[in-house]
């Protein structure tokens, strides 16, 4: 923890007020509503609703499809978070080495982030549709029977790739910022101590990058868990079968498309609990290993 701090009492509250207000209105209030809704059985328009207690939860948790979805989510989220972070870190490290053209690469790396999800779905269709996709052709030529429409593994690979692709830019940007804050003197000391570049990366740079990495870990976990249903929706629609139906896609699909309100709300409550647990875990256990300057 910080050695010195400002002693003010009121000021921190003033500083926190906007965020707290917005959080309460736009997060806690809706979350409370979702919680209420999860105990109801309701038609979409809310014309009739019956209190059913925990029935929705019971139902969701006993649904084998839901458990399947938990598994899909675990594989998908872990892969996306891991890949998106490691590829971005790798590229950020490369970019740091470059002196001329750094800005150029940096700009290009951010492009995919600028692609609205609405367009991204279309792009992936055009590129990876097994028969006419521009990039599916080369795969075919290489003898890979590329068919994410029917092959569950291919579909999983495809959405992992798409979700990773979308997030690399984000991670890249923050890794670049994080790398710049590492004192060069420490790398010098490591060089003197005989560390190879690779070694000093893993023993000095990486540990000192931990605040950024930790931030990205939290953000990427959340991203992989939540913000990816748009991509799944556009790219595989949860299929083939239920091979790519993640928890949040299911929440979205059941609530938004199928309009099964109570169950969808129950699912989002479960999801919230999972993420609260995950976030708490990350802050309590993983952050212990983070070294701040």
């Amino acid at each position, binding site marked *: 923890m910080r050695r010195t701090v400002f002693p003010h009492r009121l000021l921190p509250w003033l500083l926190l007020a906007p965020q707290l207000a917005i959080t309460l209105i736009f997060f806690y209030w809706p979350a409370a509503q979702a919680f209420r809704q999860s105990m109801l059985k309701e038609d979409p328009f809310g014309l009739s609703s019956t209190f059913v207690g925990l029935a929705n939860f019971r139902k969701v948790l006993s649904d084998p499809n839901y458990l399947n979805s938990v598994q899909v989510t675990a594989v998908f989220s872990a892969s996306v978070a891991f890949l998106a972070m490691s590829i971005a870190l790798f590229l950020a490290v490369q970019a740091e080495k470059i002196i001329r053209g750094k800005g150029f690469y940096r700009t290009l790396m951010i492009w995919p982030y600028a692609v609205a999800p609405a367009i991204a779905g279309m792009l992936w269709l055009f590129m990876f549709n097994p*028969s006419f996709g521009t990039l599916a052709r080369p795969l075919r030529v290489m003898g890979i029977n590329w068919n994410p429409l029917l092959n569950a593994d291919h579909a999983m690979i495809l959405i992992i790739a798409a979700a990773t692709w979308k997030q690399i830019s984000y991670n890249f940007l923050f890794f670049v910022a994080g790398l710049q804050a590492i004192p060069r003197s420490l790398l010098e000391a490591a060089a003197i101590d005989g560390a190879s570049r690779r070694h000093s990366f893993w023993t000095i740079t990486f540990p000192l990058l931990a605040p950024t990495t930790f931030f990205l870990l939290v953000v990427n976990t959340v991203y992989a868990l939540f913000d990816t249903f748009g991509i799944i929706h556009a790219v595989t629609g949860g299929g083939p*079968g239920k091979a790519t139906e993640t928890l949040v896609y299911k929440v979205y699909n059941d609530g938004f498309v*199928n309009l099964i309100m109570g169950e969808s709300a129950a699912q989002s409550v479960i999801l919230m609990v999972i993420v609260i647990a995950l976030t708490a875990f990350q802050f309590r256990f993983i952050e212990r290993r983070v070294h701040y300057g």
Partner: protein
Amino acid sequence: ATEISWWHAMTGANAEVVTKIASDFNASQSEYELKPVFKGTYPETLNAGIAAFRAGQAPDIMQVFDVGTGVMMGAKGAIKPVAEVLKEGGQTFDKSQYLAGIVGYYSTPEGEMLSFPYNSSSPILYYNKDIFAKAGLDVDNPPKTWAEVWAAARKIKESGAATCGYTSTWLTWIHTENFAAWNNVSWATNENGLAGVPELKIDGPLFVKHFHELADLAKEGVFVYGGRTSEAKQNFTSGECGILTESSGGLGDIVKSGMNYGIGQLPYDETAAGAPQNTTPGGASLWVMGGKSDEVYKGVAAFFAYLSKTEVQQFLHEQSGYLPVTMAAYEATKASGFYEKNPAREVPILQMSGKPPTENSKGVRAPNLPQLRDIQNEEYEKMLAGQQDAATALKNAAERGNAAIRDLTGG
């Protein structure tokens, strides 16, 4: 002027048509001002409407896709039947003026029209004439039955004219719901759900036979699966597949792709008694939301009356590719010689209104049709991937679907 809000999900050229119709309507009178608002895809529009209704801000008119019909009908207090609106609004409403296949779909079993059909479509068959020629198939006579389609498709593949013989969009809508209606077999009990809570019958022998054949074709690589909705259209425009079954609404893209295409009726199963019967519409209809002022309802009624006008219907039909909803518009279009130039436009109308609908062909309805389609798609995909046979796939689809329905209706 009283403002009337109209939330819709029309994109592309169809969005232009909406804008044009609205401004023409506004220009035609001064009492009401119709304000069309794009609210995203069909599910997004429906959700926006629901959220708005719950917040007391529902629009006056809302476009809801075909599969949302069940939900809207269930929301008794939230909507106002169109028939009522028209009557109270002082508009004469003569049901017989409308295409029976379409109006039937959006009415109660008792015949009260609940929503106003805006954009209706019907699945038809497209084929690539160049590929047909190359494969030595009759370029002017597309296959009429599924058996003929299978044969032609195999020939295309075998002859090397194309890598894929046949593909189709919407397996649920075309190969299940319309398959049932067109071949006059039951999709579900209770008049396919129009008369009450349905119990799915999609694991019937005719369905099994059909999907069995489709699965075989897929195994041979003759049939290529393109996705759950319209994605397969691209497999056709790219020249990869020789035959496509797809909504009549898909014509625009096919025309624009510049390919040498032909069209035919949706194929039927020649072993089915009475086939071909009639197809059922896809697309969407306009629902009037409840709890609005009389003034608004009057305006809505006036708009629907305007929309029913022959020249408006004719415009809608010719510009958007959707079906006209009135007989008069159809006749007028025919008289104008439009169909000679665009035979593809007439086929869906003929399919839909060739015979008076039976219990099996008025359409399908379930409170959770999107979910049922999801279930079907999942099972079909497993089947096409070779993980299960057609009988199992359909049995699973029916069972899981029925369970979902029971769940919802508390049955």
